[in-house]
């Protein structure tokens, strides 16, 4: 390894053969492709937040204007049909 670094500046071809990656003048490893961070879950936090789902939006201050419930379920009242409904799915009955 140290031998490769020592000779990196002289011979890129040799370093390619030995380690399979390209190196810059300083000897640091250079990625051929850009970082894949943006596609990972961590990377997604770095890009601006996508448009929020308009289906069930948060109430202003998280207070339901009709029932004055704070911290309750978003969207229409889940028990309005007799079961506990959310996004068309029934989760309890």
């Amino acid at each position, binding site marked *: 390894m140290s031998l490769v670094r020592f000779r990196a500046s002289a011979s890129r071809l040799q370093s390619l053969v030995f380690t399979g990656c390209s190196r810059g003048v300083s000897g640091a490893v250079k990625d051929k492709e850009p970082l894949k961070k943006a596609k990972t879950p961590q990377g997604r936090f770095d890009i601006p937040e996508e448009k929020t789902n308009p289906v069930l939006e948060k109430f202003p201050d998280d207070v339901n204007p009709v029932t004055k*419930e*704070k*911290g309750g379920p978003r969207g*229409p009242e889940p028990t309005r049909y007799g079961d*506990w409904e*959310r996004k068309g799915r*029934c989760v*309890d*009955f």
Partner: protein
Amino acid sequence: MASVCAASRLLSKRISTQYPVVDHEFDAVVVGAGGAGLRAAFGLSEAGFNTACVTKLFPTRSHTVAAQGGINAALGNMEGDDWRWHFYDTVKGSDWLGDQDAIHYMTEQAPAAVVELENFGMPFSRTEDGKIYQRAFGGQSLKFGKGGQAHRCCCVADRTGHSLLHTLYGRSLRYDTSYFVEYFALDLLMENGECKGVIALCMEDGSIHRFRSQNTVIATGGYGRTYFSCTSAHTSTGDGNAMVTRAGLPCQDLEFVQFHPTGIYGAGCLITEGCRGEGGILINSEGERFMERYAPNAKDLASRDVVSRSMTIEIREGRGVGPEKDHVYLQLHHLPPQQLATRLPGISETAMIFAGVDVTKEPIPVLPTVHYNMGGIPTNYKGQVITHTNGNDKVVPGLYACGEAACASVHGANRLGANSLLDLVVFGRACALTIAEEHKPDKGKIRWHRLRRDRTPSGSSGPVHITCLLHCSLWCLCCLPRRETVPPDAQCRRRVCGQPGQAEEGCDKMDDIYQSLDDIKTFDRGIVWNTDLVESLELQNLMLNAVQTIYSAEQRKESRGAHAREDFKDRVDEYDFSKPTQGQEKKPFEQHWRKHTMSYVDPKTGKVSLEYRPVIDHSLDEQDCAHIPPAIRSY
């Protein structure tokens, strides 16, 4: 067969030399780390017991996390309320099959339990005054049914179960409970009819661990996966029920399984009744709105059990849709899309994700789906596991059960919405309190040592079980396909006992499948993370549950709560409660059905034997809260 027996005898000799078995000793062991398991585990640690929590999943992955509905308690924040009215509602909801002392205990403890959860940090939604907001849900009424709708259901936005589980897990970390995560519990260690602990397989390295303890609490959850269509996680395989069955103890009321008519085919999510309320209709392969035939007035808005039964009959008679003709369609595309978007926001997203259909153009494939198991391991109101011999309940020393795995029985023949989360915390705590009352913690007794050549009979069947699966290549069938074929049969046979003879047919078919279990072979012979092995063990557990469910259902010749039969449409009680009981002759115990089913299975042959146990009709304190005499259940 003889060669198989000889092989297993040889194997059991070799077992202790070849497989490492590690011994642990604790004051209390809890099997399962869902809502009930965690509450029991840290309740015990808080009381000073050296507690182990053995779980096959990480605690926050247990199925409790999917319970999005609320939790009922008579706090009285929205209007005046009394827990005795909640008691009445629950007894009525159970169709008078629930034990009234356990229901008394649960509903009386409910307000304290919810306040305790709130003190642990569970972020319930609030009213303007800062009190916990309660909404109307789950058949709750005021003044014993005469005062109108009660508002008792407390929730945390729309993730109550998730929040409960995380709150309990976070709280449990304050105490020094030892967690054994990803350990699959194989069997109970029983000696002379007393439970001395549990034996488990460490999935990570394949070693076998024996947890010896004076007190074992089973909180392993339900067994939804016996059915093809269920809302349960893949891990809901009734391991606790099976362990208890193999120990020769009974399971109670397994025939009471709660169905919901419209679950998405293949996915297992439920579609709300609001779809039908807004005008959605159920259609069969001929495009016919079949509910008109079964319920001419209510049509698609008939009660859930009528709709489920109608759907099942249509499928059995060959008018199902799809390549297997095993489900029906829920049609919504005849409704204006604007109406769907405003009244049922999110339904198009749900239909696209889970069913892959555009709800404005195509119908959604649905079929009746299992949601909850009311039955389980029989316990008294303190959480102690009981058997019923010579007409009396007898406690099994050292064994406790709570949560969906147990049958206390608070849900009886039908569970009310938002009562099951309450059941978890109240009885989880009850188990911890009972153990603390009966025993003193014994400090500093953990001993870890490798097992010498083990001679003790208890627990040795578990490892032999595994070695048979790993080593014998005599057998031919792979586990995975088996797991797929058992449930659809269970689904069809069990759901509707339409004409006489169908239930018996179901039992025979189930027997054949049980016998074919002998042919299981695992292809993965490794010791580390052998999921093939674990799934085979789960399949065996599922089979024990399935066989008891179908036999109990076949024997129960009445319709009560969630157990509905076309050939026996009425409830059969000791009196005819639609008329005044005075002047009526009381039917003897053998001739009516207001009793609990206690089912035993011989694991080798799969033969089920059934006994019956009377329902407890008195409350814990008749002065404080009088029991509710049976009546006709109508809403």
